[in-house]
């Protein structure tokens, strides 16, 4: 998964041609850490349909809040520079993430 940050978010996420998934996470967020292997597995499976990125909110707090992300875990999908779908907290389950990818992926 591609690590995005305040320097490359514009180009890699907002300016990307196809759908982009962004996993907002932090090392302090235990539910996020629990999701890591699951999201990695989804990246293997759906990497050709959606571009997978992760964003460490500890190092990119302003950027996260700018994206209206103020809670973890949050997994969002962007298309043409717009956030089109988002799952947060308890809703961010593997099943829901997979369904979101299927709906918004290529």
């Amino acid at each position: 998964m591609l690590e995005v940050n305040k320097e490359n978010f514009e180009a890699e996420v907002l300016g990307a041609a196809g759908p982009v998934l962004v996993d907002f996470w932090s090392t302090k967020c235990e539910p996020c850490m629990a999701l890591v292997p699951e999201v990695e597995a989804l990246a293997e499976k759906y990497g050709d349909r959606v571009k997978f990125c992760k964003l460490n909110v500890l190092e990119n707090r302003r950027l996260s809040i700018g994206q209206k992300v103020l809670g973890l875990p949050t997994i969002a999908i962007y298309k043409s520079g717009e956030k089109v779908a988002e799952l947060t907290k308890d809703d961010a389950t593997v099943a829901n993430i997979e369904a979101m990818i299927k709906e918004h992926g290529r």
Partner: protein
Amino acid sequence: MAVRECDVVIIGAGPAGLAAALYASRARLRTLVLDKGTPGGQVRTTWSMENYPGFVRGMTGPELMDRFAEHAKEFGAEIMRGDVTEVDFGGDPKIVKTHGGEEYRARAVIVAPGAEPRTLGLPGERELRGKGVSYCATCDADFFEDLDIVVIGNGDAAVEEAMYLTKFVNSATMIVVHDEGILDATAVIRDRAFKNSKMKWVWNSVVEEIRGDGIVESVVIKNIKTNERTELEANGVFVFVGTVPKTDFLRGHVELDRRGYVVANELMETSVDGVYCAGDARIKYLRQVITAAADGAIAAVAAEKYIHEEEGFREMVLDPEEPVMVAFWSPASQASLDFLPTVERVAEGRRGKLNLVKIDIYKNQRVAGRYGVAEAPTMAFFRGGQLVEKVCWPTNESELAAVADKVIGG
């Protein structure tokens, strides 16, 4: 669909489930723990952990849980990822199914699903979850560095989590329903909180609404004495108002109370034989790591005893092809003790045609109860796994011999 068999399946890897796993695996039971997330349960999201005996300071919730998990694995327990959606406790083995379609079969099941934060159902609460509304301080504290937050709740957990948040935020305003100076939190925590300069207090008040366009901007507070409403600007709202048990999947399978907590006795036995409950999901007085761990230990020992009792009964009484004469006796019943030599003589005279098994009804109350044996001596005869004759208080050898011969001839 994969099917796996083991002795004990433990649902939930919080402190209750992990302690149960440690005790069960150390008793050499093949032990499997299922949890939908990382082991540790709610303790994972608690940073400060200063009331677990033996660790005064420097121990965090996640770290303690990692140690619990390591300890259980040390004795052979297997901890697996699995979101349990379906159970069938009706037969033997008991069946547990996960979201992914895996099936687990076990002789005994310990349910330790724990609880999750209770939500208030306030206008704006659901919509702004993850947008400033949070139930997990360690997850989201960083977002609120130098910002102003509101905390709802005033019990131990609420005040402790708020104090943790003050390491990050500019201010934490506690909305407290009680009169000034009164908190549900215990005195030691209360006193510490009152000395914390970043904590502010709004008394006699409740939050009525959380407002914001996309992210939290303010809360509407109502004073319950004056009914006056005020709007308070806030960047975040943390809610710590107790928990609800995660027992939906158990509904209709074990007895629950009105609020969804599992009914279990001192041995952690639920309404179903061989199914035990440990931890926060159980009706109990105190929900802490230490009481969860204690529940887990008791449940595992009770489950082990159950498995051995059932196994022994099946091997000796239900499985043999030849008829089995069971003498239910009790050390408390002199009559039953006096009758045992007679029982031995009747069995001796029919060696090869009739097996004798002696069962202490005090130590094996479950088996005795299943066959309606309430007092000793009671003689019961089994053939092909079925109870065929039962004699309560047989008086002499000839009476017992007659029944024995009838069963053998039968």
